């Protein structure tokens, strides 16, 4: 048995254990670095807006960042939902960490607007919209992403209200709207029940929105801009590898929290690594499954237009990012995660997770740079393979800065909202006990709902 961290089983109910938000200071080198990277991200975004508005190729690498955020920060909250749905108590200390990534996910909307504005007309190229001209793809994609982001923020906020509201006298003293925002929280049995129902319902909608947004954006920013690229598996591949990267990001964040946050660190350990590590291994195998399903079909059918698209994303034009992605997202993680020792250690699995997160950047480069930089997106097939479009210095600074901004926003959110879900952890402590069973110890878990 991988025992849970002892602190998680002994939480006080009276006075109730209340987690605190991160105490951050610019005097800390890591925080200062993140702030600097975040500032760089903002500056580079403004520079792009001013110098490259409407120039699609200039937005190729920002599109990589957009799809990176969508596949990491935006997918992380799914862990909170899935573990609530499956009643996985091992994830209690991870749920808020995962849900907090809803905050940096908002940056994806900021990126989406100029990227969508740079797209060519739908007419004359393959697309999802069948001639629907009332707002597609700009309005439809922006609306879909905003639904997803709204759901993520609602999930984060509602689950945080019991930790943030404070005593009833404070809530009663609030103004009408603020009180409404805090759900008029007094801790009645009915409020607890509504909160649990809201978490599950919104979580289900979040999953639905996640899949839908991947379908739209992978098509509108990928396949429909590279003539001949037609794949029904590609959106699913993106969603599944996004889940792989979301798990990796959550594990990586948990390891960093354990190292730098003494309060959160007491609850984070090998139990989370062991449980989430198995899912990460499965998701890593899915990388290959979906890649191979897509590849084999096209290889066997030998349709010239589809083969050309595969040569761009896999075999010729972007072979370098493909190889790096395959090594970092499949070969190395698979080779390491099959060992129990790696899967059951938060420190070791965090190392594997960092490979996956870095590999994802290269994976998204091979998919989205060619379509966004393609000067001839119209027609049904490419006449010749496009030359690779490598990043210039500004693109590299943009990617480093904006990804840094994503982490800076996460840390800022974690400094406002506790990184642990206090009420769920207290409930978990009440319902989980370690007991002696013959000559060993076992965990007795109550699952009443």
């Amino acid at each position, binding site marked *: 048995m991988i025992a849970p961290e002892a602190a998680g089983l002994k939480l006080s109910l009276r006075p109730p254990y209340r987690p605190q938000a991160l105490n951050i200071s610019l005097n800390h080198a890591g925080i200062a670095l993140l702030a600097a990277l975040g500032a760089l991200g903002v500056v580079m975004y403004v520079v792009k807006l001013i110098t490259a508005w409407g120039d699609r190729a200039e937005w190729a690498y920002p599109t990589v960042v957009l799809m990176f955020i969508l596949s990491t920060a935006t997918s992380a909250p799914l862990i909170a939902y899935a573990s609530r749905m499956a009643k996985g108590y091992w994830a209690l200390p991870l749920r808020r960490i995962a849900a907090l990534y809803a905050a940096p996910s908002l940056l994806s909307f900021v990126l989406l607007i100029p990227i969508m504005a740079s797209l060519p007309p739908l007419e004359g190229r393959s697309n999802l919209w069948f001639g629907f001209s009332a707002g597609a793809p700009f309005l439809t994609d922006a609306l879909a992403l905003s639904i997803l982001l709204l759901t993520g923020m609602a999930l984060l906020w509602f689950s945080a209200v019991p930790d943030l509201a404070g005593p009833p006298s404070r809530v009663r003293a609030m103004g009408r709207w603020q009180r*409404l925002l805090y759900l008029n929280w007094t801790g009645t049995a009915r409020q607890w029940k509504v909160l649990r129902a809201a978490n599950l319902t919104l979580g289900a909608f979040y999953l639905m929105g996640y899949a839908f947004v991947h379908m739209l954006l992978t098509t509108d920013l990928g396949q429909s801009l590279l003539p001949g690229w037609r794949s029904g598996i590609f959106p699913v591949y993106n969603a599944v590898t996004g889940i792989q990267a979301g798990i990796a990001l959550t594990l990586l964040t948990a390891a960093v929290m354990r190292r730098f946050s003494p309060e959160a660190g007491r609850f984070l350990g090998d139990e989370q690594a062991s449980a989430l590590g198995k899912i990460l291994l499965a998701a890593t195998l899915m990388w290959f499954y979906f890649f191979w399903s897509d590849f084999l079909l096209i290889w066997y059918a030998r349709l010239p237009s589809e083969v050309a698209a595969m040569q761009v994303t896999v075999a010729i034009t972007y072979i370098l990012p493909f190889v790096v992605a395959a090594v970092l997202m499949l070969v190395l993680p698979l080779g390491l995660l099959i060992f129990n020792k790696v899967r059951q250690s938060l420190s070791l699995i965090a190392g594997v997770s960092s490979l996956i997160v870095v590999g994802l950047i290269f994976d998204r480069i091979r998919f989205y740079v060619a379509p966004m930089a393609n000067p001839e997106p119209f027609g049904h097939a490419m006449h010749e393979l496009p030359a690779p479009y490598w990043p210039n210095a500004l693109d590299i600074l943009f990617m480093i800065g904006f990804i840094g901004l994503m982490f800076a926003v996460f840390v800022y959110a974690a400094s406002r909202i506790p990184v642990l879900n206090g009420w769920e952890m207290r409930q978990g402590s009440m319902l989980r006990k370690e007991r002696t069973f013959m000559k060993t110890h076992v965990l007795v878990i109550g699952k009443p709902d």
Partner: protein
Amino acid sequence: MQSQAKRELLALYEEPDQAADAVERLHSAGFDDNDIEILSSTPYPEGAFGEGHTKHRLFAFPFAGAACGMAVGIAWIVGAQVSLPIITGGKPIVAVPAIIQILYEGTLLGAVLFTVLGVLFESRLPDGVGLYDDRISEGYIGISVMARERRLPDAQIALEEASPIDLLSKEGSLMHAPGTT
């Protein structure tokens, strides 16, 4: 008519077992679950205090929202297609495969918005309990009961027999008031 008005009592307990005992005594005294409210800083499993099934209407909101969202989606896409009726690839002007993602989007938007509104609505109305005490957020468990004037002594006895640390009415603590026990 004065005796028909309901008044509220709030008892605070140190231990969950005491709170469960209070609920049982209130039931025995003839108070039903609609009169009793449990307040805690940690969510206890439903029924842990012997209380009945708590009802809420949150699940109705996503359905209503989904229906409204789908209606808006249909209006959006049918309106757009009919206002510019171009036959594409020999397909009908309004073809289901071509509109399915707009319908999905509208339905999901409506469901999410109504769920959020539903959470706010369910939290705001009715306006929680009248009496409250900050000690509940410190881990004590509150049992609130609404009783008609003439039944107030029965409620007070039931709550007191479960050994609360305090018993409150609108006027203040009853534990230390003269003439109460």
